[in-house]
């Protein structure tokens, strides 16, 4: 199945993958005009070229878990603006905009759910909220998810997408990397399964913490995955970037990923992993 066909586009090009709110939309990869309802039915995967569009948290949760099994945790956590950060616009106004846009308080939704017969602690990051950057709230919610997972002896699954640490919270953001990794140390010591699912794009601070600390690391096809952004690398080193650089397929070849899984098989694959690693 050609679901990771090579593209000729440069990796530097920014591709918009959000599903726009129209009846029809164009696949940014193959330019096919797709009926939105058809795209939704196909879990946001282009029927022609298998391009994986970005999913918001609700669509992501729906495709991963059993219906009516989700119990949300820590939904009320809300970001503050501790540095009173003002660049071209203030951080608090950006927060407000993004809350309005997404209807959520920050970039991740966490809770307990069932996948198949297995109860899991699950978190889904939403790139639509400030590029799913990790500030104090994302860090705290991920940490609580893992800690509660450890306490209740649950496997943890996190669907990752992130532009990195949230600059507007300065060093508080960087320290979320430490906090979440610390919680994973305890979860691992308790002998519990943790799987990050890397979706387009997963980079920087999230990559250098919980996104790469899985017992098993899974990615969707053709996702941008890396530490530094391709533009930064190109500017810093003046190197030509290899073809397919920082894409899922590249990372599978270079040994970071356990598997690239097509979205339509994602849930089933995760359930299999849960089954293989469960005590019974």
């Amino acid at each position, binding site marked *: 199945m050609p679901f990771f066909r090579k593209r000729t586009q440069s990796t530097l090009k920014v591709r918009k993958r959000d599903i726009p709110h129209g009846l029809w939309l164009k696949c940014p990869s193959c330019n096919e005009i797709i009926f939105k309802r058809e795209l939704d039915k196909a879990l946001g995967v282009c029927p022609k070229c298998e391009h994986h569009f970005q999913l918001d948290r609700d669509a992501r949760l729906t495709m991963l878990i059993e219906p009516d099994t989700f119990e949300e945790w820590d939904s009320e956590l809300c970001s503050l603006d501790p540095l009173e950060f003002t660049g071209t616009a203030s951080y608090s106004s950006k927060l407000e905009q993004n809350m309005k846009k997404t209807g959520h308080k920050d970039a991740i939704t966490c809770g307990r759910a069932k996948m198949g017969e297995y109860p899991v602690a699950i978190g889904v990051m939403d790139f639509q909220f400030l590029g799913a950057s990790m500030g104090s709230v994302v860090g705290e919610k991920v940490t609580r998810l893992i800690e509660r997972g450890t306490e209740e002896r649950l496997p943890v699954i996190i669907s990752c997408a992130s532009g990195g640490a949230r600059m507007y919270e300065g060093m508080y953001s960087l320290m979320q990397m430490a906090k979440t990794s610390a919680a994973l140390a305890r979860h691992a010591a308790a002998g519990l399964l943790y799987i990050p699912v890397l979706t387009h794009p997963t980079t920087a601070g999230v990559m250098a913490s919980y996104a790469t600390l899985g017992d098993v690391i899974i990615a969707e096809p053709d996702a941008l995955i890396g530490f530094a952004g391709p533009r930064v*690398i190109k500017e810093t080193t003046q190197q030509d970037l290899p073809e397919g650089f920082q894409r899922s397929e590249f990372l599978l070849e270079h040994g970071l990923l356990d598997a690239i899984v097509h979205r339509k098989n994602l849930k089933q694959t995760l359930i299999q992993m849960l089954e293989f690693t469960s005590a019974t």
Partner: protein
Amino acid sequence: MTTYALPFEKPIVELEKKVQDLRSFSQNQDIDVSQEIEQMQQKIDDTRRDIYGHLTPWQKVQVARHPTRPYPIDYISNFSPEFLELHGDRLFADDHAIVGGFGKIADKKVLFIGTCKGRDTKSNLKCNFGCAYPEGYRKALRLMKLAAKFNLPIVTFIDTPGAFPGVESEERHIAEAIAVNLRESFTLPVPIVVVITGEGGSGGALGIGIGNRVLILEHSYYSVISPEGCAAILWKDRAFADKAAEALHLTSDALLEMKLVDEIIPEPVGGAHSDYEAVFENMKNAILRNLEELQELSTEELMQQRYEKFRAMGVFEEPEVKKKK
């Protein structure tokens, strides 16, 4: 006397030049100008105190990057002439941007880890200007585990612009190397003291920056992103780095106030580069005092303290009503 002057140090340099001129004049003419020189010297001290007493965040960043600022290896060599360097990550290579090995601080056996920038072009290149590859972080972890095995406290010195953003770094998974260091640092049963001595460049600094105590040298900075990087994102122009430095709250006093570092180690007036001996002394005393305090804790307490320290970091709002547990 500094050979490299930062822009805001110009008044000091000018005064110093005047003193020199006076000296040579007096020698040539055989006139006693010692009183004038003394006055000038006083003025230099006052000017320096005045300038260094009012450094802006961006100026502090420049002091932190001063090319003659003492580097981690200078502290290690000063504290421990017998420093025994250990090389390699046993996986790929020996990264010269991070050094580590057995050493002593006032007769106390420790394991040192430090970033390395290099002093001249040749060593700059060898050390990749202090930007480590994945193998640097993996070497650091190997050595930290060695310290744990032989019950040696770990002291890390950090002065790096950040982990190296390059093709090879990505191919060998720099993000994973840092993440694993973060996680494993919380499982080490020995005291860890971290000192930011210059630049604390984001994840590249944090990768060897987990400890029971995190100290910072007065004019160092520690930031989620470089001021230039932040300026490039926000104002689309790196020239706004001074504004970005202010917005990021990256100075030692700001970090102490946010409780993200535990202690500021004072620098001599004029910065660490103006008086090595003084800063060595301050540094040594601070590390020893912290190690002694940590020695009182049991293994479990050490690990618990480290966990709770980082666990508490972050600022957010949570309405009481919905609070569970």
